[in-house]
Protein backbone atom coordinates (compact mmCIF):
# COMPACT_ATOMS: atom_id res chain seq x y z
CA UNK A 1 0.00 0.00 0.00
CA UNK A 2 1.28 3.41 -0.86
CA UNK A 3 0.43 5.32 2.30
CA UNK A 4 0.95 4.29 5.86
CA UNK A 5 -1.91 2.35 7.39
CA UNK A 6 -3.34 3.00 10.81
CA UNK A 7 -2.82 -0.45 12.22
CA UNK A 8 -0.50 -3.14 10.99
CA UNK A 9 -0.22 -6.70 12.18
CA UNK A 10 2.04 -9.57 11.26
CA UNK A 11 1.22 -13.15 12.18
CA UNK A 12 2.40 -16.60 11.17
CA UNK A 13 0.63 -17.68 8.00
CA UNK A 14 -1.38 -20.42 9.63
CA UNK A 15 -5.11 -20.78 9.87
CA UNK A 16 -4.85 -21.03 13.66
CA UNK A 17 -3.93 -17.34 13.80
CA UNK A 18 -6.88 -16.21 11.75
CA UNK A 19 -8.96 -16.21 14.92
CA UNK A 20 -6.57 -13.69 16.44
CA UNK A 21 -6.87 -11.50 13.40
CA UNK A 22 -10.64 -11.72 13.47
CA UNK A 23 -10.70 -10.76 17.11
CA UNK A 24 -8.39 -7.80 16.51
CA UNK A 25 -10.55 -6.64 13.63
CA UNK A 26 -13.66 -6.83 15.80
CA UNK A 27 -11.91 -4.78 18.49
CA UNK A 28 -10.97 -2.08 15.99
CA UNK A 29 -14.47 -1.98 14.57
CA UNK A 30 -15.93 -1.65 18.07
CA UNK A 31 -13.76 1.43 18.56
CA UNK A 32 -15.30 2.87 15.40
CA UNK A 33 -18.80 2.27 16.79
CA UNK A 34 -19.80 -0.34 14.27
CA UNK A 35 -22.98 -2.20 15.10
CA UNK A 36 -22.82 -5.83 16.14
CA UNK A 37 -24.12 -6.92 12.74
CA UNK A 38 -21.45 -4.91 10.95
CA UNK A 39 -18.82 -6.40 13.21
CA UNK A 40 -20.09 -9.89 12.53
CA UNK A 41 -19.93 -9.26 8.76
CA UNK A 42 -16.46 -7.83 9.08
CA UNK A 43 -15.28 -10.76 11.13
CA UNK A 44 -16.60 -13.21 8.59
CA UNK A 45 -15.06 -11.25 5.71
CA UNK A 46 -11.65 -11.29 7.39
CA UNK A 47 -11.94 -15.04 7.84
CA UNK A 48 -12.77 -15.58 4.19
CA UNK A 49 -10.07 -13.20 2.95
CA UNK A 50 -7.50 -15.02 5.06
CA UNK A 51 -8.68 -18.37 3.74
CA UNK A 52 -8.21 -17.02 0.21
CA UNK A 53 -4.64 -15.82 0.72
CA UNK A 54 -3.58 -18.70 2.95
CA UNK A 55 -4.59 -21.20 0.30
CA UNK A 56 -1.52 -20.33 -1.75
CA UNK A 57 0.70 -19.14 1.10
CA UNK A 58 4.23 -20.46 1.48
CA UNK A 59 4.58 -22.63 4.55
CA UNK A 60 6.43 -20.87 7.34
CA UNK A 61 5.69 -17.47 5.84
CA UNK A 62 3.95 -14.47 7.30
CA UNK A 63 0.38 -13.27 7.22
CA UNK A 64 0.19 -9.48 7.07
CA UNK A 65 -2.79 -7.37 7.89
CA UNK A 66 -3.32 -3.65 7.39
CA UNK A 67 -6.21 -1.68 8.74
CA UNK A 68 -7.12 1.75 7.49
CA UNK A 69 -9.48 3.33 9.97
CA UNK A 70 -11.66 6.27 9.14
CA UNK A 71 -14.91 7.62 10.44
CA UNK A 72 -17.59 5.00 9.81
CA UNK A 73 -15.52 2.76 7.60
CA UNK A 74 -12.62 0.37 7.79
CA UNK A 75 -10.42 -0.89 4.99
CA UNK A 76 -8.74 -4.20 5.59
CA UNK A 77 -5.96 -5.76 3.56
CA UNK A 78 -4.56 -9.20 4.28
CA UNK A 79 -1.56 -10.65 2.50
CA UNK A 80 0.65 -13.68 2.65
CA UNK A 81 4.00 -14.54 1.13
CA UNK A 82 3.35 -16.77 -1.80
CA UNK A 83 5.74 -18.05 -4.43
CA UNK A 84 2.97 -19.59 -6.49
CA UNK A 85 1.44 -17.23 -9.02
CA UNK A 86 -2.05 -18.58 -8.50
CA UNK A 87 -4.73 -15.99 -7.99
CA UNK A 88 -7.69 -16.48 -5.72
CA UNK A 89 -10.46 -18.31 -7.45
CA UNK A 90 -13.05 -15.60 -8.01
CA UNK A 91 -15.72 -18.23 -8.54
CA UNK A 92 -15.05 -19.77 -5.16
CA UNK A 93 -17.53 -19.65 -2.37
CA UNK A 94 -15.16 -17.66 -0.17
CA UNK A 95 -14.84 -14.97 -2.82
CA UNK A 96 -18.59 -14.80 -3.23
CA UNK A 97 -19.05 -14.36 0.51
CA UNK A 98 -16.41 -11.66 0.56
CA UNK A 99 -17.94 -9.64 -2.26
CA UNK A 100 -21.38 -10.01 -0.75
CA UNK A 101 -20.34 -8.78 2.68
CA UNK A 102 -17.95 -5.99 1.75
CA UNK A 103 -17.28 -3.43 -0.95
CA UNK A 104 -14.31 -2.63 -3.18
CA UNK A 105 -12.83 -6.09 -2.99
CA UNK A 106 -9.44 -6.13 -4.68
CA UNK A 107 -7.06 -9.02 -5.12
CA UNK A 108 -3.54 -8.08 -6.13
CA UNK A 109 0.00 -9.34 -6.22
CA UNK A 110 2.95 -7.19 -5.18
CA UNK A 111 6.24 -9.01 -5.54
CA UNK A 112 6.11 -11.99 -3.25
CA UNK A 113 3.05 -10.70 -1.48
CA UNK A 114 -0.34 -11.73 -2.59
CA UNK A 115 -3.06 -9.65 -1.02
CA UNK A 116 -6.79 -9.26 -0.78
CA UNK A 117 -8.38 -6.06 0.48
CA UNK A 118 -11.88 -4.81 1.08
CA UNK A 119 -13.85 -2.08 2.80
CA UNK A 120 -16.67 -2.35 5.31
CA UNK A 121 -18.75 0.70 6.19
CA UNK A 122 -20.69 1.20 9.36
CA UNK A 123 -24.43 1.02 8.77
CA UNK A 124 -24.94 3.91 11.19
CA UNK A 125 -22.74 6.42 9.40
CA UNK A 126 -24.40 5.67 6.09
Amino acid at each position, binding site marked *: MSHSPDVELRLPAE*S*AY*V*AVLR*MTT*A*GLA*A*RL*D*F*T*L*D*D*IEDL*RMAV*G*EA*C*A*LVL*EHADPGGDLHAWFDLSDGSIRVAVAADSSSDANPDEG*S*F*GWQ*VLTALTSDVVSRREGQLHWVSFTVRS*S*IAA
Partner: protein
Amino acid sequence: MPGPEPDLTPDPAPELAHALELENAPQIGTVTDTGPREGRSHRRAPLTARQLSTRELSHSLFTELTDPETPDARRSSCREELVRLHLPLVDHCARRFMNRGEPLDDLVQVGTIGLIKSVDRFDNERGVEFSTYATPTILGEIKRYFRDKGWAIRVPRRLQELRMSISAVTGDMSQDLGRSPTPREIAERLGVSVEEVMEGIESANAYSTLSLDAGDSGEDGQGNSMLDSLGMDDEALAHVEIRESLKPLIDQLPSREKRILMLRFFRGMTQSQIAEEIGVSQMHVSRLLNRTLAQLRTSLTEVG
Protein backbone atom coordinates in the same frame (compact mmCIF):
# COMPACT_ATOMS: atom_id res chain seq x y z
CA MET B 1 -25.92 -20.31 18.93
CA PRO B 2 -27.00 -23.77 20.01
CA GLY B 3 -28.08 -23.96 23.62
CA PRO B 4 -25.73 -26.14 25.58
CA GLU B 5 -28.47 -26.90 28.12
CA PRO B 6 -30.90 -29.30 26.44
CA ASP B 7 -34.15 -29.71 28.25
CA LEU B 8 -34.58 -33.31 29.20
CA THR B 9 -36.91 -35.00 31.55
CA PRO B 10 -38.07 -37.95 29.51
CA ASP B 11 -40.25 -40.74 30.68
CA PRO B 12 -38.19 -43.74 29.68
CA ALA B 13 -41.07 -46.08 28.98
CA PRO B 14 -42.56 -44.29 25.94
CA GLU B 15 -39.05 -43.94 24.64
CA LEU B 16 -38.73 -47.64 24.70
CA ALA B 17 -42.04 -48.19 23.03
CA HIS B 18 -41.06 -45.74 20.39
CA ALA B 19 -37.68 -47.26 19.77
CA LEU B 20 -39.13 -50.72 19.46
CA GLU B 21 -41.75 -49.46 17.11
CA LEU B 22 -39.18 -47.81 14.93
CA GLU B 23 -37.37 -51.04 14.80
CA ASN B 24 -40.47 -53.02 14.02
CA ALA B 25 -42.31 -50.71 11.72
CA PRO B 26 -40.93 -51.95 8.41
CA GLN B 27 -41.80 -55.58 9.08
CA ILE B 28 -45.04 -55.30 10.95
CA GLY B 29 -47.96 -53.17 10.01
CA THR B 30 -49.78 -53.12 13.33
CA VAL B 31 -47.92 -52.10 16.38
CA THR B 32 -49.45 -52.28 19.79
CA ASP B 33 -50.16 -49.38 22.10
CA THR B 34 -47.43 -46.90 22.82
CA GLY B 35 -48.61 -45.94 26.28
CA PRO B 36 -46.29 -45.37 29.20
CA ARG B 37 -46.97 -48.85 30.52
CA GLU B 38 -45.22 -50.47 27.60
CA GLY B 39 -42.50 -51.69 29.93
CA ARG B 40 -44.93 -54.17 31.47
CA SER B 41 -46.78 -55.06 28.31
CA HIS B 42 -45.93 -58.75 28.53
CA ARG B 43 -49.02 -59.01 30.74
CA ARG B 44 -51.19 -57.61 28.02
CA ALA B 45 -52.68 -58.65 24.73
CA PRO B 46 -50.48 -60.62 22.30
CA LEU B 47 -47.36 -58.93 21.14
CA THR B 48 -46.09 -59.03 17.64
CA ALA B 49 -43.60 -61.73 16.87
CA ARG B 50 -40.69 -59.40 16.36
CA GLN B 51 -41.24 -57.52 19.61
CA LEU B 52 -41.37 -60.75 21.50
CA SER B 53 -38.23 -61.97 19.91
CA THR B 54 -36.30 -58.78 20.75
CA ARG B 55 -37.45 -58.93 24.32
CA GLU B 56 -36.98 -62.62 24.76
CA LEU B 57 -33.63 -62.56 23.09
CA SER B 58 -32.53 -59.75 25.35
CA HIS B 59 -33.83 -61.57 28.39
CA SER B 60 -32.25 -64.90 27.56
CA LEU B 61 -28.96 -63.23 26.71
CA PHE B 62 -28.94 -61.51 30.08
CA THR B 63 -29.73 -64.77 31.82
CA GLU B 64 -26.81 -66.36 30.04
CA LEU B 65 -24.57 -63.39 30.76
CA THR B 66 -25.18 -63.48 34.49
CA ASP B 67 -25.03 -67.26 34.77
CA PRO B 68 -21.79 -68.13 36.59
CA GLU B 69 -21.57 -71.34 34.52
CA THR B 70 -21.22 -69.43 31.26
CA PRO B 71 -17.66 -69.51 29.89
CA ASP B 72 -15.91 -66.16 29.51
CA ALA B 73 -15.77 -66.27 25.74
CA ARG B 74 -19.50 -66.88 25.47
CA ARG B 75 -20.14 -64.16 28.03
CA SER B 76 -18.31 -61.54 26.03
CA SER B 77 -20.14 -62.51 22.86
CA CYS B 78 -23.45 -62.27 24.79
CA ARG B 79 -22.48 -58.79 25.91
CA GLU B 80 -21.62 -57.77 22.39
CA GLU B 81 -24.86 -59.15 21.05
CA LEU B 82 -26.85 -57.31 23.71
CA VAL B 83 -25.19 -54.03 22.82
CA ARG B 84 -25.82 -54.59 19.15
CA LEU B 85 -29.43 -55.56 19.80
CA HIS B 86 -30.16 -52.26 21.50
CA LEU B 87 -28.31 -49.92 19.16
CA PRO B 88 -31.59 -48.65 17.65
CA LEU B 89 -32.46 -47.37 21.12
CA VAL B 90 -29.28 -45.31 21.18
CA ASP B 91 -30.01 -43.99 17.74
CA HIS B 92 -33.46 -42.96 18.84
CA CYS B 93 -32.17 -41.18 21.95
CA ALA B 94 -29.43 -39.41 19.97
CA ARG B 95 -31.90 -38.17 17.38
CA ARG B 96 -33.70 -36.19 20.02
CA PHE B 97 -30.62 -34.00 20.29
CA MET B 98 -30.14 -33.43 16.60
CA ASN B 99 -29.49 -29.90 15.34
CA ARG B 100 -28.13 -28.68 18.62
CA GLY B 101 -24.69 -28.04 17.28
CA GLU B 102 -23.19 -31.46 17.71
CA PRO B 103 -22.91 -34.04 14.94
CA LEU B 104 -25.36 -36.92 15.27
CA ASP B 105 -22.59 -39.48 14.89
CA ASP B 106 -20.85 -38.12 17.97
CA LEU B 107 -24.07 -38.31 19.93
CA VAL B 108 -24.66 -41.89 18.82
CA GLN B 109 -21.15 -42.70 19.88
CA VAL B 110 -21.46 -41.31 23.42
CA GLY B 111 -24.94 -42.80 23.66
CA THR B 112 -23.45 -46.17 22.81
CA ILE B 113 -21.03 -45.79 25.69
CA GLY B 114 -24.08 -45.27 27.90
CA LEU B 115 -25.62 -48.43 26.45
CA ILE B 116 -22.49 -50.47 27.15
CA LYS B 117 -22.46 -49.17 30.72
CA SER B 118 -26.07 -50.17 31.22
CA VAL B 119 -25.50 -53.64 29.78
CA ASP B 120 -22.72 -54.07 32.32
CA ARG B 121 -24.77 -52.79 35.22
CA PHE B 122 -28.17 -54.24 34.45
CA ASP B 123 -29.65 -56.58 37.02
CA ASN B 124 -31.85 -59.12 35.29
CA GLU B 125 -33.43 -60.26 38.56
CA ARG B 126 -35.23 -56.97 39.13
CA GLY B 127 -37.89 -57.80 36.56
CA VAL B 128 -37.65 -54.53 34.61
CA GLU B 129 -37.18 -54.35 30.91
CA PHE B 130 -33.63 -53.62 29.93
CA SER B 131 -34.60 -50.69 27.70
CA THR B 132 -36.44 -49.06 30.60
CA TYR B 133 -33.23 -49.24 32.54
CA ALA B 134 -30.93 -48.25 29.71
CA THR B 135 -32.75 -45.21 28.34
CA PRO B 136 -31.97 -42.83 31.24
CA THR B 137 -28.36 -43.98 31.24
CA ILE B 138 -27.99 -43.33 27.53
CA LEU B 139 -29.69 -39.95 27.78
CA GLY B 140 -27.53 -39.13 30.79
CA GLU B 141 -24.39 -39.89 28.84
CA ILE B 142 -25.50 -37.67 25.95
CA LYS B 143 -26.44 -34.84 28.31
CA ARG B 144 -23.09 -35.11 30.01
CA TYR B 145 -21.43 -34.85 26.64
CA PHE B 146 -23.25 -31.58 25.99
CA ARG B 147 -22.21 -30.28 29.37
CA ASP B 148 -18.55 -31.19 29.04
CA LYS B 149 -17.93 -30.81 25.38
CA GLY B 150 -20.63 -28.34 24.31
CA TRP B 151 -18.18 -25.48 24.05
CA ALA B 152 -15.28 -25.88 21.66
CA ILE B 153 -13.22 -23.77 24.06
CA ARG B 154 -13.91 -23.79 27.75
CA VAL B 155 -15.16 -20.31 28.64
CA PRO B 156 -15.19 -18.93 32.21
CA ARG B 157 -18.56 -18.73 33.85
CA ARG B 158 -18.35 -14.94 34.15
CA LEU B 159 -18.06 -14.67 30.38
CA GLN B 160 -20.82 -17.17 29.73
CA GLU B 161 -23.12 -15.08 31.89
CA LEU B 162 -21.95 -11.86 30.27
CA ARG B 163 -22.64 -13.39 26.91
CA MET B 164 -26.15 -14.30 27.95
CA SER B 165 -26.91 -10.78 29.18
CA ILE B 166 -25.41 -9.33 26.02
CA SER B 167 -27.61 -11.45 23.80
CA ALA B 168 -30.67 -10.58 25.89
CA VAL B 169 -29.92 -6.85 25.73
CA THR B 170 -29.05 -7.07 22.03
CA GLY B 171 -32.52 -8.38 21.24
CA ASP B 172 -34.21 -5.61 23.21
CA MET B 173 -32.02 -2.87 21.81
CA SER B 174 -32.45 -4.05 18.23
CA GLN B 175 -36.17 -3.63 18.77
CA ASP B 176 -35.78 -0.14 20.24
CA LEU B 177 -33.23 1.15 17.77
CA GLY B 178 -34.46 -0.57 14.64
CA ARG B 179 -30.89 -1.72 13.96
CA SER B 180 -28.36 -3.80 15.79
CA PRO B 181 -26.69 -1.93 18.67
CA THR B 182 -23.03 -0.97 18.84
CA PRO B 183 -20.80 -2.43 21.53
CA ARG B 184 -20.65 1.00 23.18
CA GLU B 185 -24.42 1.14 23.47
CA ILE B 186 -24.52 -2.34 24.98
CA ALA B 187 -21.75 -1.43 27.39
CA GLU B 188 -23.69 1.60 28.56
CA ARG B 189 -26.85 -0.41 29.05
CA LEU B 190 -25.08 -3.16 31.01
CA GLY B 191 -22.79 -0.83 32.92
CA VAL B 192 -19.61 -2.57 31.75
CA SER B 193 -16.73 -1.46 29.55
CA VAL B 194 -16.66 -1.81 25.75
CA GLU B 195 -13.74 -4.20 26.15
CA GLU B 196 -15.80 -6.48 28.34
CA VAL B 197 -18.62 -6.47 25.82
CA MET B 198 -16.18 -7.46 23.10
CA GLU B 199 -14.83 -10.18 25.33
CA GLY B 200 -18.32 -11.49 25.90
CA ILE B 201 -19.09 -11.49 22.18
CA GLU B 202 -15.82 -13.18 21.46
CA SER B 203 -16.64 -15.90 23.96
CA ALA B 204 -19.82 -16.67 22.06
CA ASN B 205 -17.69 -17.51 19.07
CA ALA B 206 -15.75 -19.99 21.14
CA TYR B 207 -18.61 -22.44 20.83
CA SER B 208 -17.24 -23.25 17.42
CA THR B 209 -15.36 -21.16 14.89
CA LEU B 210 -14.33 -22.06 11.39
CA SER B 211 -14.05 -20.33 8.07
CA LEU B 212 -15.91 -22.12 5.32
CA ASP B 213 -12.74 -22.49 3.30
CA ALA B 214 -10.62 -23.49 6.25
CA GLY B 215 -9.43 -27.06 6.22
CA ASP B 216 -10.49 -29.41 8.95
CA SER B 217 -7.33 -29.72 11.03
CA GLY B 218 -9.04 -31.79 13.70
CA GLU B 219 -7.63 -34.97 15.15
CA ASP B 220 -9.16 -37.14 12.47
CA GLY B 221 -7.20 -35.07 9.94
CA GLN B 222 -9.38 -35.84 6.97
CA GLY B 223 -8.52 -32.49 5.47
CA ASN B 224 -12.06 -31.78 4.35
CA SER B 225 -13.09 -28.16 4.30
CA MET B 226 -16.53 -27.22 5.49
CA LEU B 227 -17.15 -26.07 1.97
CA ASP B 228 -17.07 -29.70 0.86
CA SER B 229 -20.24 -30.30 2.79
CA LEU B 230 -22.14 -27.56 0.99
CA GLY B 231 -24.23 -28.43 -1.99
CA MET B 232 -23.55 -27.19 -5.48
CA ASP B 233 -25.05 -27.52 -8.93
CA ASP B 234 -24.95 -31.04 -10.21
CA GLU B 235 -22.29 -31.19 -12.89
CA ALA B 236 -24.41 -33.58 -14.91
CA LEU B 237 -27.15 -30.97 -15.06
CA ALA B 238 -25.64 -29.42 -18.17
CA HIS B 239 -25.77 -32.79 -19.88
CA VAL B 240 -29.51 -33.13 -19.44
CA GLU B 241 -30.25 -30.84 -22.33
CA ILE B 242 -27.80 -32.60 -24.61
CA ARG B 243 -29.14 -35.96 -23.64
CA GLU B 244 -32.71 -34.89 -24.26
CA SER B 245 -31.87 -33.54 -27.69
CA LEU B 246 -29.89 -36.67 -28.55
CA LYS B 247 -32.72 -39.03 -27.71
CA PRO B 248 -34.83 -38.53 -30.86
CA LEU B 249 -31.70 -38.61 -33.03
CA ILE B 250 -30.59 -41.92 -31.58
CA ASP B 251 -34.06 -43.30 -32.11
CA GLN B 252 -33.73 -42.58 -35.82
CA LEU B 253 -30.52 -44.59 -36.17
CA PRO B 254 -30.57 -47.98 -37.90
CA SER B 255 -30.87 -50.76 -35.36
CA ARG B 256 -27.32 -52.07 -35.75
CA GLU B 257 -25.75 -48.65 -35.26
CA LYS B 258 -27.96 -48.06 -32.29
CA ARG B 259 -26.96 -51.36 -30.77
CA ILE B 260 -23.25 -50.60 -31.17
CA LEU B 261 -23.74 -47.21 -29.57
CA MET B 262 -25.52 -48.74 -26.59
CA LEU B 263 -22.91 -51.45 -26.11
CA ARG B 264 -20.08 -48.96 -26.30
CA PHE B 265 -21.40 -46.12 -24.17
CA PHE B 266 -23.97 -47.66 -21.88
CA ARG B 267 -22.53 -51.08 -21.29
CA GLY B 268 -18.98 -49.76 -21.50
CA MET B 269 -17.78 -52.57 -23.79
CA THR B 270 -14.61 -52.24 -25.82
CA GLN B 271 -14.72 -52.18 -29.59
CA SER B 272 -13.29 -55.70 -29.81
CA GLN B 273 -15.93 -57.01 -27.41
CA ILE B 274 -18.63 -55.40 -29.50
CA ALA B 275 -17.10 -56.84 -32.66
CA GLU B 276 -17.32 -60.30 -31.15
CA GLU B 277 -20.87 -59.77 -29.94
CA ILE B 278 -22.13 -58.57 -33.29
CA GLY B 279 -19.96 -60.76 -35.42
CA VAL B 280 -18.03 -58.19 -37.46
CA SER B 281 -14.41 -57.06 -37.32
CA GLN B 282 -13.18 -54.54 -34.79
CA MET B 283 -12.19 -52.23 -37.64
CA HIS B 284 -15.73 -52.28 -38.87
CA VAL B 285 -17.09 -51.47 -35.44
CA SER B 286 -14.67 -48.56 -35.24
CA ARG B 287 -15.76 -47.24 -38.64
CA LEU B 288 -19.43 -47.62 -37.80
CA LEU B 289 -18.99 -45.87 -34.46
CA ASN B 290 -17.12 -42.96 -36.00
CA ARG B 291 -19.69 -42.54 -38.69
CA THR B 292 -22.59 -42.68 -36.24
CA LEU B 293 -20.98 -40.18 -33.90
CA ALA B 294 -20.18 -37.78 -36.71
CA GLN B 295 -23.74 -38.09 -37.93
CA LEU B 296 -25.15 -37.38 -34.47
CA ARG B 297 -22.85 -34.41 -34.02
CA THR B 298 -23.93 -32.86 -37.29
CA SER B 299 -27.61 -33.33 -36.67
CA LEU B 300 -27.22 -31.97 -33.16
CA THR B 301 -25.58 -28.76 -34.37
CA GLU B 302 -28.12 -28.45 -37.14
CA VAL B 303 -30.94 -28.67 -34.65
CA GLY B 304 -29.16 -26.33 -32.21
